[in-house]
């Protein structure tokens, strides 16, 4: 077979371009630390990477939502603790009044205290977190509790509560409506306190015994709410942890799919660089073998 100059040159250029392409590619892989630079490098892996990244992104959002539920939970916890403390004070007043040891001055003082308690509980009921009245339910941008002149309290919030997604197809209530927090069946925290206030103002000890039990029931309701809320906070903490594990697993999948092995790439780069140099060297050598060099 005749070997012409074009054959030598074309073959050199073909191999030279091929090695140069491989070198450029390895160099880019090292620079980006990714083994897959574009979909055509591995279409299936790239597709998996896009979907896994989206999945991971979704779990980040679920964690953020769960974190929000948890933060609300902590806020409720503080509220319930304060409510419980204030109800305990009301209960002490009830017991003191029922014992008949309260003179007019102490009774006046007790009236003021109960009014304070009602005002305080209304303030707690109207607690705001960000732009949200946390006891407002689905009407959370206006104060849910209104203190009337006679110290009765009106609930203007929504009895329904917004939910958020904390996992796929799983929603969690974002807090608690004031209706659920302060009213349940026959228990009505504000009505009980208003009744106690009226009894004290009217100085009618015969009525006081019913409020001792009613305040106890109110405290039980608040305790139940505290427990429910505590459980929810724990659930959310567990869910955030679960999501972290899931995200780690997804990140690992993405990393295994996309990330480059730098040691392997360095070895490959060195090997290609040697081939590159050898190719140029051999071309120079072959060109020097031409008959022209002997004629000069």
């Amino acid at each position, binding site marked *: 077979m005749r070997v012409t100059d074009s054959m030598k040159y074309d073959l050199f250029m073909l191999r030279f371009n091929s090695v140069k392409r491989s070198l450029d590619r390895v160099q880019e892989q090292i620079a980006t630390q990714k083994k897959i630079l574009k979909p*055509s490098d591995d279409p299936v892996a790239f597709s998996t990477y896009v979907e896994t990244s989206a999945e991971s992104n979704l779990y980040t959002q679920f964690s953020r939502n769960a974190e*929000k539920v948890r933060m609300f939970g902590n806020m409720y916890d503080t509220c319930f603790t304060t409510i419980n403390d204030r109800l305990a004070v009301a209960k002490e007043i009830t017991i003191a009044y029922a014992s008949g040891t309260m003179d007019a001055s102490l009774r006046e003082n007790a009236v003021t205290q109960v009014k304070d308690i009602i005002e305080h509980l209304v303030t707690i009921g109207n607690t705001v977190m960000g732009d949200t009245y946390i006891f407002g339910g689905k009407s959370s941008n206006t104060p849910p509790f209104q203190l009337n002149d006679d110290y009765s309290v009106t609930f203007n919030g929504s009895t329904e509560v917004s939910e958020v997604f904390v996992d796929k197809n799983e929603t969690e209530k974002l807090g608690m409506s004031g209706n659920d927090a302060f009213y349940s069946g026959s228990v009505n925290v504000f009505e009980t306190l208003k009744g106690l206030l009226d009894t004290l103002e009217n100085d009618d000890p015969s009525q006081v015994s019913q409020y001792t039990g009613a305040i106890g029931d109110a405290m039980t309701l608040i305790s139940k709410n505290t427990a429910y809320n505590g459980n929810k906070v724990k659930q959310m903490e567990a869910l955030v942890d679960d999501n972290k594990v899931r995200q780690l697993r997804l990140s690992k999948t993405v990393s295994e799919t996309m990330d480059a092995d730098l040691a392997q790439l360095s070895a490959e780069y060195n090997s290609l660089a040697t081939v590159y140099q050898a190719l140029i060297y051999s071309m120079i050598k072959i060109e020097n073998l031409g008959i022209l060099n002997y004629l000069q």
Partner: protein
Amino acid sequence: MGITSILNIAKNAMLAQQFAIQVASQNIANVNTKGYCRQAADLREGPLVPSEYGLVGTGVAVAGFTTYYDKFLETAIANRNTNLEQQNTEATYFSRVETVLNEDNSHLAARINDFFNSWHDLSADPSSYARRSSVAMKGENLARTINNLYNDLNAIQRELDSQVGSELAEINRLTSAIADLNKKIIALGSSSGGEEAAYISQRAQLVKELSGKINVNSFEDQFGGLTVMTGGSNLVEGTTSWKLDTIQDPDTGFRNVAWQDDSGNPIDITDSISGGKLKALVDMRDQYIGNGFVEDLNKLAETIITEVNSLHASGYNENGTTGFAFFREVTSDFARDMDLSQSIKDDVGNIAAADAPGESSGNDVALRIASLIDQSLMIGSQTTRLTTYVSTMMGKVGELARNAQELSEQQQSAMTIMEKQRESASGVSIDEEMSNLMKYQYAYQAAARLITVADEMFQDLLGVIK
């Protein structure tokens, strides 16, 4: 036989070697000329003449020259070039489409996620103005991302369309040049002593170039003229060439390929083009981008617009008003025209998160919209999740780009082998030509020496007479 005949032999020999050196020079000069076929001088022994001792030689004569041209190999190379150019063009443009759609550049899946996550954030804080603004901003980002992708793909489509026009002009130039060469070859006939071979090799080079642009069949007629056809339409016959032109596709507005018949009437032959760069350009423009990725993008945009708007219109804004569209209502070119509705642009308070008028901070609609990201939706004819659809699109472009690249490399390898075979037969070797040059130069010197000898013989003879 006399001294004069020695001089004649020497003179003919010098002229013959000089001619051979000229042929070698031509080869050396064309060592890097693509498609050039090497030539070799044909030296024959001069006619024998009778003498008193029998028939004696009269030296050397030039019988012409041989062009090393393999007709069958050249035809095979031209055919291979059709596939090579088609695959190269597809590989180039798939690579560009891939760059546009690559998630690392387009962030399409990320923008979809961001948009629906913003609804999640709004659902967790429905009365927040900041969250509403974020939903509007993420919606606008998503719309712009899809608009940009559409525009980028459309720009490639327009470039492909413009290339169709340029390629047709090139094809017309080539067919006209082939017809000109046909004319010269037919005029020379077969008695030109190899002169027509140079034209044939030039014509073969043009046919190869033409084959790269469009699928052609070619055959030689009895007079040496080459007939070139594409599909069933003549491009060249003898000394006549037919022009290809463009006609506008009534549906897409892009250029279709038309063959002009003898009366100059255009006949649309786009569908009958089966290979070459032109085929790749038309396929990429219409099939892979137009009806492929642009259509995929349209379906994606349509689904997002329809699903979000349907839920959003059923919801209530901050003021308890219902019936607002979130995205602008469009009926076609969804990817191009996707945008926020004017009511959302005017006031983000019009974003409807609640499903009842009294719930100023209700979030049921926000929740429903947020959950779309994780639902199987009807996108075109597929029922799939939005991000799965996008990842499938990425996989599809990757697969097509990879396949085109592999086919291009295969065709290149096959072409390299054939070019090597061609080079082996027709290519120029400088070493070989330099050897020939030395050979002819020595022969020339020897012939010149013969003249000196004959001259000395004459002088000696004249000296005797004196």
